[in-house]
């Protein structure tokens, strides 16, 4: 293995265009606070980081293990709520974050382990149904147990002083952009997500990852070769769940708020599915491309839809205003989703690689 591709675990992008796009995205994210100053762009950049790591952890399941889970947001929510509840009840302290993580990560692992052992024994289709049922029960629980989770309102909390927007490290007149606690939080999110991504890339290129792919391609054969399918699938599920919980915790820190809509809603699950499928299942890099495209589209294309809708309304066209209403965003995503499953099963990354790999 070449030493320069060590961080990529010997799995480079394998396409010049893809490599360039990835570098552009990486540079953009790494210098986001300076390249795109302002609250909204920074929010978008943080969301891109979070969705990349989250989608990558889902890709481990969907793309590499060939298992559809609808409970990924549940684990994401466990991480989010873990940190949120700890910070809310203990106050803005670093050890509260530590405690939240120390409870949330093992809890996510345990839940994933139980669900996996329980439902991966029989069929993957069983797993999809059971995760859907468990995740919806979890969502109901989280919005009903208001003494713990704050119910539908969720929990707003304060983060440690170092991460607060009011903490200024470098005033605005030095670099042109103020470096504040918010900037530090962004870099915390960025670096953690990058490390999680590299970790996942390492996992899928390890012998364990190869076994997962073998199981995806031909479970009977893999079992005949002596690999326990249930164990491998369950471990993949646990690993994905722990990463999702960690990403959830980062999201909570960034938003300084956790509620059912930001941490558990089924829409997030659909977003992740879409990112992985459009980016390219089983490629990991698909998560970066898909995540970036998706979050950018979500933040800037919805406004465009609103314009189209109003214009169509003024032109007196029937039905079009309601079809292009910004709330109908999911309609177009759904159509795109179906189309990409049919026509580009290998996603954008697969297209860029030209089907050679």
């Amino acid at each position, binding site marked *: 293995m070449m030493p320069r591709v060590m961080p990529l675990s010997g799995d480079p992008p394998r396409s010049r265009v893809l490599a360039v796009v990835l570098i552009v995205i990486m540079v953009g994210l790494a210098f986001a606070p300076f390249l795109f100053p302002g609250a909204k762009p920074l929010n978008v950049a943080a969301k891109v980081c979070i969705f990349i790591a989250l989608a990558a952890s889902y890709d481990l399941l969907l793309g590499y293990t060939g298992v559809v889970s609808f409970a990924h947001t549940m684990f994401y929510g466990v991480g989010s709520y873990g940190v949120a509840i700890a910070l809310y009840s203990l106050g803005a302290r670093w050890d509260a974050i530590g405690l939240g993580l120390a409870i949330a990560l093992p809890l996510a692992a345990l839940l994933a382990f139980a669900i996996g052992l329980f439902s991966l024994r029989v069929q993957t*289709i069983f797993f999809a149904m059971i995760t859907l049922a468990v995740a919806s*029960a979890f969502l109901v629980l989280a919005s009903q147990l208001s003494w713990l989770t704050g119910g539908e309102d969720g929990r707003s909390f304060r983060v440690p002083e170092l991460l607060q927007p009011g903490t200024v490290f470098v005033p605005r007149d030095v670099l042109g952009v103020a470096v504040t606690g918010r900037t530090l939080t962004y870099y915390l999110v960025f670096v953690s997500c990058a490390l999680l991504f590299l970790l996942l890339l390492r996992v899928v290129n390890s012998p364990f990852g190869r076994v997962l792919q073998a199981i995806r391609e031909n479970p009977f054969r893999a079992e005949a070769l002596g690999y326990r399918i249930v164990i491998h699938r369950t471990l993949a599920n646990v690993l994905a769940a722990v990463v999702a919980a960690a990403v959830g915790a980062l999201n909570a820190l960034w938003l300084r708020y956790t509620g059912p809509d930001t941490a558990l809603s089924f829409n997030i699950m659909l977003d992740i599915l879409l990112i992985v499928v459009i980016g390219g299942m089983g490629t990991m890099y698909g998560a970066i491309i898909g995540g970036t495209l998706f979050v950018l589209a979500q933040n800037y294309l919805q406004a465009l839809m609103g314009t189209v809708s109003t214009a169509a309304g003024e032109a007196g066209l029937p039905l079009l205003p309601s079809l292009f209403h910004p709330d109908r965003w999911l309609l177009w995503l759904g159509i795109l989703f179906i189309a990409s499953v049919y026509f580009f099963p290998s996603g954008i990354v697969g297209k860029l690689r030209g089907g050679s790999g």
Partner: protein
Amino acid sequence: MSAQDSATDASAALPKARRDFLPLLLPVALGLAALPFIPSSSTWVTLTIAGLAMGMMIFIMASGLTLIFGLMDVLNFGHGAFIAIGAYLATLVLLPLGGWMQADSIWLNLAAVVPAVIVAMAGTAVLGLAFERVVIAPVYGQHLKQILITMGGMIVAEQILYALFGPQQIPLPLPTSLRGSFQIGEAAIEKYRVVCVVAGLVVFLSMLAILNRTRIGLLIRAGVENTEMVEALGYRITRLFVGVFMAGSALAGLGGVMWGLYREQVNAAMGGELLVLVFIVVIIGGLGSVTGCFIGALLVALATNYAGFLVPKLALVTDIALMVAVLLWRPRGLYPVTSR
């Protein structure tokens, strides 16, 4: 063992399958187990009838899904969409006929409800045909893609419903003659719930009759066991697939109408919400089994009703708890379909 015994008997052409009655007793046992905890027996009767009515509606929705899965090995995540579409189609008929619905005559009420049900079932059947041919047919045998595609179909259908009918809830009042309740002793039994129980039983029994007593039913059961063999014997399995898919979708539509009338309102999100419940029922029953699905639906609905009365907070997780308990006992559901 009994299979071997009877096989040696020359007069018996086919070995008889061993009957498994244990799951049938579960809903009865659940009902009796709840009896001591509920203060008055009239409350128990009301709760039980409510549970049975809800169970029958869930069964009607779930039976289509389980049949489709059993025969075609397709898990249709878009089934929830058919439930919602059925309910909306019914409102299209019922809202203009509001006068007939509110009239104090059972015939006028029926003249509104029957066409609504027919329109809903026919509409969902035709949509089912299109959905099967266009969306599902290209991905037979590929579970992963099926899940993704049908899930996508569900999202698109739900969003189109939003776009066409708006996000608000549409009220769907019950017809006058189905309102109110019978008084038996101290127990009040709502009329509509009795109608639901009867309708559910009719659907269940006619499904059993069709599956067990007709030639089509024979082919469907053979297809569930071994699709390739049915094809090899010269039957067009595709036609069977299409027919069952249409029937399953029509049942989802019927369930949607009944649920909409039960809740007296219709909204686009109902499909997704009911889908989860339907899945739990189908898993409990054993994927592909109609009888299992029937028992599963009754169990889930009864447990929800009892728990909702005794410990309201617990009612949020009774479905899952029930599913876990059943799967611990029988990992593939109450009546596992043997071939898969």
